[in-house]
């Protein structure tokens, strides 16, 4: 694969290392699942980074939290990113901690003026502490909360003001457009596409007539591939990740999904490779 990486999960960690049929361009892990780790899984990660470039996608930074940043965590994180020579570190534009308690999932930030300023300051502090750019993902959300502006404006202003990069999760755009009844293509066109540094693709689950949950537990569906095709036509080449966290299939199935995306990238970016 030239462009497509894969979320490195313990279910197939060993298997991926021991086969040669499927060679993703890189692997991505949640640093929180591998930091302070010894024993068997430490050895596995050491072997994996000998074979593949490593990207990290965090879970606990809680950039949009009303609680203070956890500076000790960020310092430990930097040590991990440095030790494993992580190529790119991304996180979620959400919050996962409030009232001094970790909640271990991604809660929606109110799309509000003061939240923008709050987050921009925190992004700059994190980038200083990590000494690397922060790449933030547009998250799936199931309800807006006390919004003063549309999501696209919220994202646009945070990226523009802070100078951070954008992880464009195409599946999340699809999920949100379904759940909130907007046009996914218009939404993507409204984003600061020149700041996109990374793309995520995944499957989801429709749980009722009007609700899709972003489970990462199903194969990618055709409308999301179509949206990916639409999106990549407007972008310069960037790395693309296939996320699969639940109902993990055989590697051959993940390879098949990766190949579909790789073909789309090749088609849309062929003429651009020479310039990047």
């Amino acid at each position: 694969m030239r462009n497509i990486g894969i979320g490195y999960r313990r279910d197939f960690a060993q298997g991926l290392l021991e086969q040669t049929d499927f060679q993703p361009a890189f692997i991505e892990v949640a640093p929180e699942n591998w930091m302070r780790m010894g024993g068997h899984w430490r050895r596995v990660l050491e072997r994996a980074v000998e074979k593949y470039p490593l990207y990290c996608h965090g879970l606990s930074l809680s950039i949009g939290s009303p609680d203070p940043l956890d500076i000790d965590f960020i310092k430990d994180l930097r040590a991990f990113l440095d030790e494993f020579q992580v190529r790119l570190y991304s996180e979620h534009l959400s919050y996962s901690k409030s009232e001094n308690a970790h909640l271990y999932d991604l809660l929606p930030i109110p799309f509000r003026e003061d939240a923008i300023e709050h987050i921009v300051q925190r992004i700059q502090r994190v980038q200083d502490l990590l000494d690397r750019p922060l790449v933030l993902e547009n998250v799936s959300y199931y309800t807006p909360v006390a919004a003063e502006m549309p999501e696209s404006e919220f994202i646009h202003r945070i990226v523009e003001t802070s100078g951070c990069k954008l992880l464009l999760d195409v599946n999340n755009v699809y999920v949100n457009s379904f759940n909130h009844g907007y046009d996914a293509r218009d939404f993507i066109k409204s984003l600061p596409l020149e700041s996109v540094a990374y793309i995520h693709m995944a499957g989801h689950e429709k749980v009722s007539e009007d609700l899709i949950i972003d489970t990462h537990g199903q194969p990618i569906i055709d409308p999301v591939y179509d949206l990916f095709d639409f999106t990549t036509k407007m972008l310069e080449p960037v790395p693309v990740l296939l996320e699969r966290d639940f109902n993990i299939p055989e590697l051959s199935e993940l390879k098949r999904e990766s190949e579909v995306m790789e073909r789309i990238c090749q088609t849309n970016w062929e003429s651009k490779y020479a310039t990047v």
Partner: protein
Amino acid sequence: MPLSDTTRDIQNRLGRYVRDGKEPQLPGVTSGRLGTYRRLVYNVIDDSLRTAYPLTEKLLSPKEWDLLVGTFFNEHDCQEFQVMRMPRELAAWEEKPTVLLEDHPALEDLLWFEWAEVELYIMEDRPIPPHKALGDWWTDHWVLNPESQILQLTYPVHRTPPENLDECEPGSFFCLAFRQPKTYSIQFVDLSAIWVELLRLVGEGTHPAKAIQWLSEATGLTQDAIKAAAPPLLEDLKERGFFLGYEE
């Protein structure tokens, strides 16, 4: 401009809701959708605890399990940024529902026993001093596996199926747990108090001969009797990867 009190309050009320399930009045929320967050967050907590504590889940009825997990998540502020280490906070949580502790006196021990396995399996590597394979039990210093814990238990949770634990009488039980250096599997060894003390003393740097002398004085057993009884255990610990060798 710092985060306004209004926005902070909105965010904290959503965070509070996913923990206690009492739906707040938040502006601009799509009807019926907040519950999705409560379910998603609760499932993460529940799954993580079930993974860490499969025996505890068997000890408790489904209703009791839900009571334990629900009250823990609602009342305890989780501090671990790593969800895989969050279950330790349940074992350490001192406000467990009294009814569960009364009906299942071994609950606390079982949680710590199960957590020891998880913690040893994921713990950071500890340096092992240089050592040689050959030596003498009583004249050389021992090198013991530093990736280990000795558990002091009131109930024999390490050798009793969870469904039988409620019938057990309290006592004083010891279990050595360690990470096997080659396979990284977690090994458990049932120990009597005298061997726990021997391993503790040697582990703290006491010469084995001195440790035997101390044990003899403390127990009234002769040093020869202790030395004669020790080798089967020590050979077993050597075979299983706890006794690593002799100091160089």
